[in-house]
């Protein structure tokens, strides 16, 4: 069956009171952005519903896959429309729809008619039983089951009549752009892309920061992070990726501070730099992929210690998740294969064999004093030499 119209269902934004129209506008715009590459489409809002119309030829599988990446959508229903709001016309359309989609397979069904158009002379109950009767007559192998039907045959009578029986699950969440912008610390590992995805799902736009350490890390490691940002941008919309050259700061820490504190001190400076860049770019929060206890730098003590340098809220959506749960999401959003490419990142190059797991803030601060004469200049230099890459999902195939 070739569909030209899709009913887009959204749940949560329906509850946002007077802001509702703003949310719907954003969702419509997001849908347009996502499907633009796949053909000519128009998006229309009618009576508190969103409809997507195909105006040109398109690939059904590709379209559904793309719509499933739009946050804010809970269901996608391919529908057929009957313009004549009369019972005979509706009946014929319903029968031809059922015959085409289900043939005469032995499935159970239930008609679920609704009418918002009260001018229509039949009640919903009458519609249900009449249409059910005609479907049974046309498809003798089908059976009615009003409790657990295989097929829920929806017939909505409005100014037109909408017929559909498939509801394809959407991503859920809120449309991106309804909740401000945040800065994601993207490392190249498994967790940070997942963290970005999860926050973006709540309607948040993303920017990202990556700490590069040439020549200790390679061009390929950087390319990997750009690719990860591109994959995440397939959900969140384009991501401005800020690439910071972190080598000199790292070497200064290596030279002057106790080796087992290197990672924790490094992370504190990363957070500081990320926050600076976030402020400059109108971000209201930071996002990290940290999960309690996963590695030495993510114990409660370490997290408290790194968090101390930030004034912005730091969102850590993976915080209570096990590694496997994070991996599951990364596989679902398609970042896993890229994340596990074996390139050294700046967190691992100088890592101590036995890093501190219970850092004490006062001691860490005292160690940092040894950097006092150089660190301001190094931080400034790092901020002045940031390279910005615009990560867009389209460029993944380029």
């Amino acid at each position: 069956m070739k569909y030209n119209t899709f009913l887009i269902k959204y749940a949560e934004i329906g509850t946002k009171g007077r802001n509702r129209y703003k949310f719907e506008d954003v969702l419509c715009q997001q849908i347009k952005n996502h499907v633009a590459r796949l053909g000519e489409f128009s998006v229309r809002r009618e009576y508190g519903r969103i409809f997507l119309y195909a105006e040109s030829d398109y690939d059904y599988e590709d379209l559904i896959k793309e719509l499933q990446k739009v946050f804010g959508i809970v269901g996608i229903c391919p529908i057929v429309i009957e313009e004549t709001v009369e019972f005979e016309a509706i009946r014929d359309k319903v029968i031809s729809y059922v015959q085409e989609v289900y043939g005469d397979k032995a499935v159970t069904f239930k008609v679920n008619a609704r009418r918002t158009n009260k001018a229509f002379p039949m009640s919903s109950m009458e519609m249900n039983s009449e249409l059910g009767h005609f479907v049974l007559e046309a498809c003798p192998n089908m059976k009615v089951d009003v409790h657990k039907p295989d097929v829920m045959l929806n017939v909505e009578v409005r100014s037109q009549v909408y017929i559909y029986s498939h509801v394809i699950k959407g991503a859920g969440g809120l449309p991106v752009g309804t909740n401000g912008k945040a800065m994601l610390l993207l490392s190249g590992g498994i967790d940070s892309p997942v963290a970005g995805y999860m926050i973006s799902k709540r309607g948040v736009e993303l920017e990202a920061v990556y700490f590069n350490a040439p020549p200790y890390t390679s061009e390929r490691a950087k390319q990997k992070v750009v690719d990860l940002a591109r994959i995440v941008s397939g959900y969140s919309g384009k991501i401005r990726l800020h690439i910071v050259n972190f080598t000199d700061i790292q070497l200064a820490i290596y030279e002057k501070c106790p080796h087992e504190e290197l990672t924790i001190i490094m992370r504190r400076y990363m957070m500081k730099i990320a926050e600076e860049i976030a402020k400059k770019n109108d971000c209201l929060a930071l996002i990290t992929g940290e999960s309690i206890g996963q590695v030495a730098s993510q114990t409660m003590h370490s997290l408290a210690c790194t968090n101390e340098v930030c004034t912005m809220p730091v969102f850590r959506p993976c915080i209570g998740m096990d590694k496997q749960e994070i991996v599951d999401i990364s596989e679902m959003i398609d970042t896993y294969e890229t994340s596990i490419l074996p390139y050294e990142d700046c967190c691992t190059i100088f890592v101590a064999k036995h890093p501190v797991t219970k850092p004490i803030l006062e001691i860490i601060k005292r160690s940092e004093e040894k950097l006092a004469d150089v660190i301001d200049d190094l931080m400034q230099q790092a901020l002045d030499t940031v390279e910005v890459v615009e990560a867009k999902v389209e460029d993944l195939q380029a």
Partner: protein
Amino acid sequence: MTQEVYFDNAATTKIIPEVREIMLETMDVEYGNPSSMHLKGVGAEKYIRYAKNAISKQLKCEPKEIIFTSGGTEANNLALLGVVEANKRSGNHIITTGIEHASVYNPILHLEELGFRVTFLRVDSEGKVDLEHLREELCDETILVSTMAVNNEIGTVEPIEEIATIIQAYNKGHDKNILYHVDAIQAFGKQIIYPKRIGIDVMSISGHKIHGPKGSGALFVDNKVKIKPILFGGGQEKGIRSGTENTAAIAGLGKATEVMYDRLEENVQQLQLVKQTLIEKATALDGVTDNSGEAPHIASLSFRGVRSEVLLHALEDKGIYVSAGSACSSNHPAVSGVLKAIDLDKELLESTLRFSFCEYNTVEEAEYTVKVLGELLPVLRKFTRK
């Protein structure tokens, strides 16, 4: 603009204008299928004939003893799997060395899984095959010996003539027909090899190591050798390598062969000059040692206290492209089998780089590289993983 120095010619080389030109002819004008009966086919077939002649002239063999493949990997696979399949009734023992390229090593592992017995010959501290070990291992069950001519990581020139002599002597004394395959991919174009005179039965070559195109290669198969195809199809190349001939790649390989052997002597002189300059000046630096063999185009140097991957990227930053003697990163602890086989100091296994040259490289480039190394090494040594 930093100077660009490409010292990774054992990985691949750039295409020279003569090669590009002949390839374009086969794409723009003589684009026919060499098997077609009409004139367009005949026109394309001429390029195949030309390339066979160009290569057979340098190997002093017959043109029909050259089988074109999609590159060195396929040539090695065909040599090993094809020869073993055709001769498996004579025995089930294969001899090779512990320092072969993956495109020899892995097909042999595959054969081992299929039930063949495999002996990996020892090499000495220079990477040369232990001939005594070979003499001990040759036996009634042996069907094939496979060794490389020049090692791709450290440039050892293997004693292929001696190996061939030992095999022939054994064959004569025991009325056997053990075959000898040589992976000559790093040697071809840099030295003269006449397989039939030496006693090599099958020999692999590749185009992109000698300024030819990637995806070009060939296998010399002596007329008297039984070999079976590993790809089946339209029966091209005497049925040993089916598939429409890649005219562009084949013509390019032929032309590259011709050009390289025309200038062989002066090329080798230039290669040696650059190699010697680099080795002499670099080993004068603190903590730099030389592992290189005699091949004129490959130098292997170890840098104590510096991780090869880091040095590689630091050189890259200065426009110098080399390759790591071993692939190492925290997630990829695989250390080069060759460096291990020559018993390199453990500390140096992950501190070794390969510099490989072509005749377009200059002494100035070698001097520039050493100057950069002199600047980088002290800095990098200050910062190492504790």
